[in-house]
């Protein structure tokens, strides 16, 4: 009889994964939790009511984060898709791709700090547009690299076929290439959405604390040691991606290599 320790490890794994979600939700309902009490002295919906009632701006931050991330994801997915075609078919393909790697692997916060002068110059410092542009600059290389595997001989021959049959480039994009890349577009959209949704350093620098996305809020609450509101903003931050994952898990990961 083979010793069956596997179920235990697996259960532990499941617990480890589920635990943060449960803990953060519980913490967001708690208040007045002094050391060394194991349980908080208040447990109820007070914090959540405050989200709607008070001027702390969490609802505004949620909306702002959604708008910024949707914009970044849409722009970088579309431009990444179209431009990666140009880059992939270009004779200097490797040099161009190498160039995209630089901003991709640099720490965004350092990149942002060195860029802030130019954002000031063009008047986008401290604005949501500026934050979208800055996040686009790090999401775009991801999209570009992501799509580079799509443009190969197979795709090329499809394009040639369209062209031989008298189709325009627009038709080749709308009727052939976009439908072909459907799944990948979705994955890329999802990934760039997350890059933007999770971004803190770059946003804090280009947004100067004025563009208060959810990640900025979490930090603010940590700074004032308001852990319960911190947990609450964490919940707002993690559950939308969980939902997205649920919707299209199978698309998320197939193509990362």
């Amino acid at each position: 009889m083979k010793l069956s320790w596997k179920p235990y490890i697996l259960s532990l794994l499941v617990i480890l994964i589920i635990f943060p979600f449960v803990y953060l939700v519980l913490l967001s309902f708690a208040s007045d939790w002094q050391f060394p009490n194991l349980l908080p002295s208040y447990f109820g919906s007070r914090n959540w009511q405050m989200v709607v009632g008070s001027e702390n701006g969490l609802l505004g931050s949620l909306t702002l984060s959604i708008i910024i991330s949707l914009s970044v994801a849409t722009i970088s997915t579309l431009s990444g898709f179209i431009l990666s075609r140009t880059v992939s078919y270009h004779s200097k393909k490797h040099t161009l791709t190498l160039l995209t790697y630089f901003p991709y692997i640099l720490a965004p916060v350092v990149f942002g700090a060195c860029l802030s002068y130019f954002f000031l110059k063009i008047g986008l410092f401290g604005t949501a547009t500026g934050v979208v542009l800055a996040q686009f600059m790090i999401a775009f290389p991801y999209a570009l690299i992501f799509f580079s595997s799509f443009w190969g001989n197979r795709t090329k021959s499809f394009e040639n076929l369209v062209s031989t049959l008298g189709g325009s480039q627009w038709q080749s994009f709308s009727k052939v290439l976009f439908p072909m890349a459907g799944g990948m577009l979705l994955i890329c959209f999802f990934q760039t959405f997350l890059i933007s949704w999770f971004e803190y350093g770059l946003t804090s620098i280009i947004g100067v604390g004025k563009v208060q996305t959810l990640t900025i809020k979490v930090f603010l609450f940590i700074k004032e040691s308001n852990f319960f509101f911190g947990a609450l903003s964490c919940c707002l931050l993690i559950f939308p991606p969980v939902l997205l994952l649920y919707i299209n898990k199978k698309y998320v990961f197939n193509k990362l290599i």
Partner: protein
Amino acid sequence: MLKLNFLVPFIVALCAFSSCQNNTSEDQPDLLAQSWEEITDSTAGTTVNFMMWQGSPEINNYINNYVVPSVKEKYNIDLKISGGQGAEIVQLIMSEKQADVNRGQVDIVWINGETFFQLNQIKGLWGPFVKKLPNSEYIDFNDPYIETDFQQPVNGMEAPWSISQFAMVYDSAKVAYPPKNLQELEAYVKEHPGTFTISNDFSGMTLLKCFLAEISGSPKGLNGPFSEEKYEKLSDQLWDYINRIKPYFWKQGTTFPKEATKMDQMFANGELWLGYGYGEGGIEDKVLQGLFPTSTRVYAWDNGTIRNANYLGIPYNSGNKAGALQVINFLLSPEAQFKKMDPEGMNANTILTVEKLPKDWKEKFESVPDRKYGVKMADLDGKDIPEPAPEYMIRLYEEFRTEVIEK
């Protein structure tokens, strides 16, 4: 050809970056020559950006749930708060200056002496505006703690917002005799290792200034302009002292907390027994909320502790100076200052001279109950030190890192 293709957009883009001058400089009329009515005539419907330190829930609550709705209701001004303090403010305004931005990010900044000093260095403030504010009539500008900020004359370039004294705090249930001078502190940490530390932030540096004054031999030892020679001599002794006793600090002095709020948490859960803070120690609200034990007490340091005012300034390139004036005037109003004194709220000392107020307000201010656990600022009279010149703070910040943290 290909190389050229490669370069052209690059050059075009660089030119675009440098030529795009962001010159939306709306001409703001010379406000200082206008009457208050003229100034505030056009502020309705505008937005004012206020950059402030956001590390305290009480202050944030006061601003977000009282000041923001009040100015909206009274003047129809949208007050937008953003986080930032000290060096961040200076750097923002400095970079804007460097980039010729005529309509800056912020209209009001909450600052004190060392930021005031640095902003003056780069001519980053607009003014003098304080005397323009109707509510400035309630402020006593003869008080040296108000008119002198870190040994520098204020001259109407920043409006005082509140005044407080730095004070030491201890848990009387755990410590019978809290240390009142450096010698006693050394004995204390040896007896109770791990229960004291210095935060690497504004409050911690203020504590170091108090220590530096004590080493100088008198509360007035640091008065006057910055002296390199004096600083070198005193700071050498200070670092020797701290490095000698830091093995008995929290985490054996291998690291120091970044923020005073973190120290509060540690005091709350009994890791630290000794603390300090502005606002006469800042314990009242925390005891009332149940964060600090009711045995928490404030006490005076033998050689005295720093007392100072904090201020509101208007950056030179604010896009809405009139709106900023309107909001600052509201913050100095008896109404807003009274709300700020609320023992259950921000619990801050008013900057206004109560005797100068209209009778009904005077009565209201005088009826504010005394603190139950903390002390009044007047109780610390005689144990107060004026802020030394800003260079002391800047140097202490730098050297606390190089001489203590990194050693």
